[in-house]
């Protein structure tokens, strides 16, 4: 494990501290410098990671920090965090149904709790609690089943009555008036939200300090393989880069990249939309989500309500999504939170999410020697960034999947051992 405030990061750059903020405030904040380099790509690396989102950067950081693999490059076609890691509604929780998922997401949640110290970067992790509402008898049964399963796995979980839910979130309408009234809820108090950009930047800065090359504006356009079929290099818009180990961590574009190596994945790419309102005074003390009526909401520190919608219904790379999808989410929210009815929405956007048939990620090697996958996170991979990054890095360094990740291999679609969070709840976010 990495000690709090990894001294190597502090040594490599002047670390952030209260004292420094104080000093800077007396000199007009002119002393702050760039937090990571912008290197030219080298000709070869031990490991090349495609995709500068949270998962790619966390993997790179852990390769350098814990696995002693230093010649690592992260290739990003645009800017880091320009994909889903910078577009999501940042809900962090670990209350999934199956043991395999619980192990992975709970490992991640534990790392979230100390992440700002580990990275010496304030990721603003705020464990304000995550409430998931049930509106039908079967919802309530599913929620109870989740709560029991989570408790057996040692994950904090509580069942809330409508009155208890209202006590935690006073603006919630728990009367019988809404079309889908609140009949009960699950509660994970350790869950919450974090600042998405800070997570990306914090990992980039820490990885860079340990010698990882984070290369932006570098799109991978082809995968070269040697006579034996193994990965030998990637072609990019900034020239060819040799490597024997290539990790595709490209979320919505995973199928496109795997296609360059001749693979068809069990993935389809869908738009997932989010919106934010104008800022208002603090009214939402926790995260509230409901997958039955596709509404996910929390309040940012700036006061905006951050709202997630359901995924769109057809695959697309257009990063836009249909208007009626966000409309339906807003209709639901106005029912649940009548005080929102006159609130204006300020911005909306979409990310392209990589959805697997069982809604669990794909982590592990492929039939192409040297080609590894970390994808399929779909609508809910932000929460997993710290844990997946650490365990995926360990897997790459060992050349074999870490035991926690082993069940998430591509092989499960052949053996039939799916980790079916899709039928368990199919929760977005």
């Amino acid at each position, binding site marked *: 494990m990495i000690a709090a405030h990894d001294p190597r990061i502090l040594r490599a750059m002047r670390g952030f501290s209260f004292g420094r903020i104080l000093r800077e405030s007396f000199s007009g904040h002119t002393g702050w410098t760039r937090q990571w380099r912008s290197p030219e790509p080298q000709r070869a690396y031990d490991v090349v990671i495609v995709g500068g989102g949270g998962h790619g950067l966390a993997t790179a950081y852990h390769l350098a920090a814990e696995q002693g693999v230093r010649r690592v490059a992260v290739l990003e076609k645009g800017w880091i965090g320009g994909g889903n890691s910078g577009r999501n509604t940042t809900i962090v929780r670990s209350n999934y149904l199956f043991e395999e998922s619980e192990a992975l997401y709970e490992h991640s949640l534990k790392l979230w709790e100390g992440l700002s110290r580990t990275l010496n970067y304030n990721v603003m992790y705020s464990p304000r609690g995550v409430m998931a509402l049930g509106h039908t008898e079967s919802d309530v049964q599913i929620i109870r089943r989740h709560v029991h399963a989570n408790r057996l796995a040692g994950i904090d979980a509580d069942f809330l009555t409508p009155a208890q839910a209202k006590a935690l979130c006073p603006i919630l309408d728990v009367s019988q008036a809404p079309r889908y009234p609140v009949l009960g809820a699950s509660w994970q108090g350790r869950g919450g939200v974090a600042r998405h950009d800070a997570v990306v930047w914090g990992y980039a800065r820490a990885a860079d300090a340990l010698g990882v090359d984070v290369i932006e504006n570098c799109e991978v356009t082809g995968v070269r393989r040697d006579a034996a079929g193994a990965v030998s290099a990637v072609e990019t818009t900034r020239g060819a880069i040799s490597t024997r180990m290539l990790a595709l961590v490209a979320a919505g*574009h995973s*199928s*496109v990249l795997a*296609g360059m190596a001749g693979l*068809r*994945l*069990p*993935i*389809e*790419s869908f738009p997932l939309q989010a919106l934010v309102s104008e800022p208002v005074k603090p009214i939402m003390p926790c995260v509230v989500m409901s997958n039955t009526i596709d509404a996910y909401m929390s309040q940012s520190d700036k006061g905006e309500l951050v709202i997630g919608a359901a995924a769109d*219904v*057809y*695959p*697309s*790379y*257009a990063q*836009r999504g*249909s*208007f*009626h999808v966000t409309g339906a989410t807003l209709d639901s929210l106005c029912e649940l939170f009548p005080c929102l009815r006159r609130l204006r929405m300020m911005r909306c956007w979409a990310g392209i999410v990589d959805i697997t*048939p069982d809604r669990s990620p794909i982590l592990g090697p492929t039939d192409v020697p040297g080609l590894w996958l970390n994808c399929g996170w779909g609508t809910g991979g932000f929460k997993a960034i710290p844990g997946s990054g650490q365990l995926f890095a360990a897997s790459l360094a060992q050349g074999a999947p870490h035991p926690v990740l082993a069940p998430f291999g591509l092989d499960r*679609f*052949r053996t039939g051992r799916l980790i079916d969070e899709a039928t368990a709840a199919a929760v977005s976010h």
Partner: protein
Amino acid sequence: MLLIPCPHCRQSRPEREFRHCGEAGLLRPVDPAAASDREWTDYLFARTNPKGESQERWRHVHGCGRFFVLRRDTREDACVTSRAGVEEAP
């Protein structure tokens, strides 16, 4: 919001009248017992998921109720053409 041309109704209708039914041209193994695990995996799970032109099944659920194949550009969400047959590979 897509405007989808239904080849049966010969009209372009809003997306909400339709249901997306997945990639077109996926054919169930002819002799299920003889198909290998790999063939089953491909049929059940592997998808092309193209960035560009895709061929997909749609059903006009809130219209004529019939299936058809839509050609669509997934980069721009532009519907190109649609045709009635769904069983043959594209």
